[in-house]
């Protein structure tokens, strides 16, 4: 039986146009509050894997711990809550990418420490391998350390639980290869890549069941203290990326193919 804590932030819906702006509270995104948000895609995979695992191992439980503005989280939860059963834990604070990973980890640590009945010896700390905002690749490890977890895995695509509670983990490493490790059991921290599960359908009943706990969790969310001054940003810019595209039209295939061959050889 596992106590699975999934950490996941909210990020702008992937097709949104993003532009950095400096405000009184530091760097953020232009119209950040107006952009539709989603649960971070990697964290979503982690959540689906957690729900899948919890279903397979009776007695297990899933918490979703998120640092974000309460109102925005409430809205995102209306989509996420239909996907998998979980209990929500909210740290009311910024969701933007410009917050330092150490600060985020501290806020999450404070939120996790407040979970009643969480058994550290059964703890599986899940999260996204990267996030679509900060992409720091470091929050989960720092949080793991704070929780005293020294078996950590990143870029995980598969977790198999043995009959003895051992964990076999498949991690992405360089060159398209996988490293396969086994860990004697919980506690462990796993940063998920895409995993192997498809996005579950929206299940209204799962949503209704989650909602009984989501609304109270949002109501009792504590403001998270994050120090926006941890990083001294000198500049944040959009890359100048417009290229002059030469369009080759109405040209015989042979000519195009030869041009590509010449380019390859150049």
């Amino acid at each position, binding site marked *: 039986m596992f106590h699975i804590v999934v950490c996941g932030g909210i990020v702008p*819906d992937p*097709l*949104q*146009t993003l532009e950095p702006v400096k405000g009184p509270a530091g760097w953020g995104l232009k*119209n950040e*509050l*107006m*952009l*539709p948000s989603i649960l971070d895609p990697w964290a979503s995979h982690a959540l689906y894997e957690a729900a899948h695992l919890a279903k397979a191992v009776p007695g297990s439980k899933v918490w979703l711990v998120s640092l974000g503005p309460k*109102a925005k989280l*409430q*809205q995102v939860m*209306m*989509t996420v809550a*239909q996907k998998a059963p979980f209990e929500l834990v909210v740290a009311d604070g910024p969701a933007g990418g410009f917050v330092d990973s150490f600060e985020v980890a501290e806020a999450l640590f404070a939120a996790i420490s407040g979970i009643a009945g969480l058994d550290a010896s059964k703890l599986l700390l899940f999260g996204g391998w990267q996030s679509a905002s900060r992409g720091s690749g470091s929050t989960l490890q720092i949080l793991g350390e704070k929780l005293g977890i020294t078996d950590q895995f990143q870029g995980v695509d598969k977790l198999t639980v043995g009959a003895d509670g051992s964990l076999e983990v498949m991690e992405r490493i360089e060159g398209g290869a996988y490293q396969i490790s086994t860990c004697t059991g919980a506690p462990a921290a796993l940063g998920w890549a895409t995993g192997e599960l*498809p*996005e*579950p*359908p*929206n*299940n*209204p*009943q799962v*949503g*209704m069941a989650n*909602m009984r706990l989501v*609304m109270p969790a949002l109501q009792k969310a504590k403001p998270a203290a994050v120090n926006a001054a941890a990083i001294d940003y000198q500049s944040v810019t959009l890359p100048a990326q*417009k290229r002059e595209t030469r369009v080759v039209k109405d040209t015989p295939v042979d000519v195009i193919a030869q041009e590509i061959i010449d380019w390859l050889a150049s």
Partner: protein
Amino acid sequence: MNERQSMETDIVCVGFGPAMGGFLTTLAKGIVNEDGSAVMESTVVPGLPPQVICYERADDIGVGVSGVVSKARGIRESLPELDPACIPLCTPITEEKVVYLVDPHGASRRSLPLKAADAALKLLGGKFPGCRYKDMAVELPYIPPFLEKHGGLTFSLGQFNQWVGNTVMATGAAQIWPASPVAAPIIEHRKVVGVRLADQGVDKAGKPDAAYMPGMDVRARLTVVGDGPVGPVGRAIDEARGLPMGHHQRDYAVGMKFVVDLPGNCPWKVGTVIHTIGYPEPEIFGFLYVLPGHVASLGIFVPSWFDNPVRTAYRYLQHWMQHPYLWKYLKGGTIRSFGAKTLQESGKNGEPYLVGDGYARIGEGSGTTNVLTGSGVDEAWTSGVQLGQAVVELLEKGLPFTSENLEKTYVARRRASWVEAEAKIAARSREAFASGFIPGIIGMALTGLTKGALCWPADSEPVHKRIPSIEEYYHGRISCEEITRIRQEATAKGLALHDALMDKVGWPEIEYDGKLLISHQDALLLGGKVQAAPGYADHVTFECPDTCRACAEKTCIEACSGQAITTNPDDGVPLFDREKCVHCGACLWNCSKPSKADPERTNVRFAAGAGGLHSAEN
């Protein structure tokens, strides 16, 4: 997961738009106290307040709707504390203009009197005393009182809906579930007893696939239908009951819009509202609202009485933006958002049965949109408020949601309100457009200025009867042989015809600037951020394939706001790509062929579907 789940609730609502916002805001105040405790008890979960669930088909509340200018009488009445500054992109109206745009290219199809007027303006415009003619446009010296929105608000409906939805949910009185298309009402013994959600994990044809999950049945004491002008639940009820005697829904428009970051040199003041007439075609009206943050919400309405079978809103929108009067200040701006929606313009004439046993209709699908005043959001909101008050009254009295009780409480309130009074005035105001642009404008003025006492009468017809053949429409401008050649070429390439035809009659080619003048495909991606989750059936289908095969206009393809319906090089039945659909529903009424089952309907079926626009700025 292959068994259909079923759930009981007190009230189930379909579609979260302004009407549902008004309903839930009002209902919440009546059923829960400020501390979240119950004023009254649910019958399905004793101890809790009545359980209210709202399903919205779009992927988030507030995505996929439109910019608004409104007197906001009803909204302000139910939200007296409303501070526009609390809602992004919301501002009081500071200036209103109605502008007639002259055709700078001579490519539009204008009647002789209109051509003469244009010629006179071009020649003498600046010399008429009092005539403000500049940049090929005349700012009308006077705005008729029925059109005026002075003292009102202009805002983004997306942001407004988000704000309302979050406020409602924070009260704990209702749950609003996005990405949850409702397939149909459940009707038993002539009574609506709930709704059925759309199946998931199905293929394009709706057949069970991996992760099949049949849509859940949600049974409720009251079903509130607010799914808009093309919503499948409202239409299913209309199909089952028919419309009240003498009513028909034949007047529509598709509104297509951009939200634009204005260029630095643009002098338009925040709160400016501009309405245009005359261009790109006389039948196409334009709007431009200047919102806070140097942003404009702008676009055009392409109405059902614009008898052009290749009625592409997108290409026309690009020509409209480039009219010298607008382009002077738009050039250099950047697209932020794009969207399109159908407007139900039949108003009172198309009003369905507002209530029945177990259900009530609110919002645009219930005929609230007022075409004379050019207002719909405030009316929709108010209809929701009226139902909210009625439902609280019935709950307090412990009375069932029968047709009779809803009639006495909700319909009575609506009939006694300004919404109804103004709808009656507006009822015949648009008739004359069936006879042409000039009679239409005169008729509208006549009706508006006499408060409905007079009108310019004209017969209405279902849209499909109005759509001429392409050859007829371009008679005298493009030869039949040329049209045949264009059709063959476009079909082979899987393209719509409008670009080739419009080029042919003198519309200048659009020179893309990558900012505002972008391909339709880019508008979908950069502006609308259109996407669709897998696992749902195609929601646009064609009732009789042979009818499509025999159809030479294929207005569904030409009018499609998302390039989601395309020419099929192998078959006459158009192709549909649900990943591009913006759910505007224009195909539903822009089809030129009647349904074999009901001549008021067309050959296009438009069902519940997930996905679509992902911009909350519209």
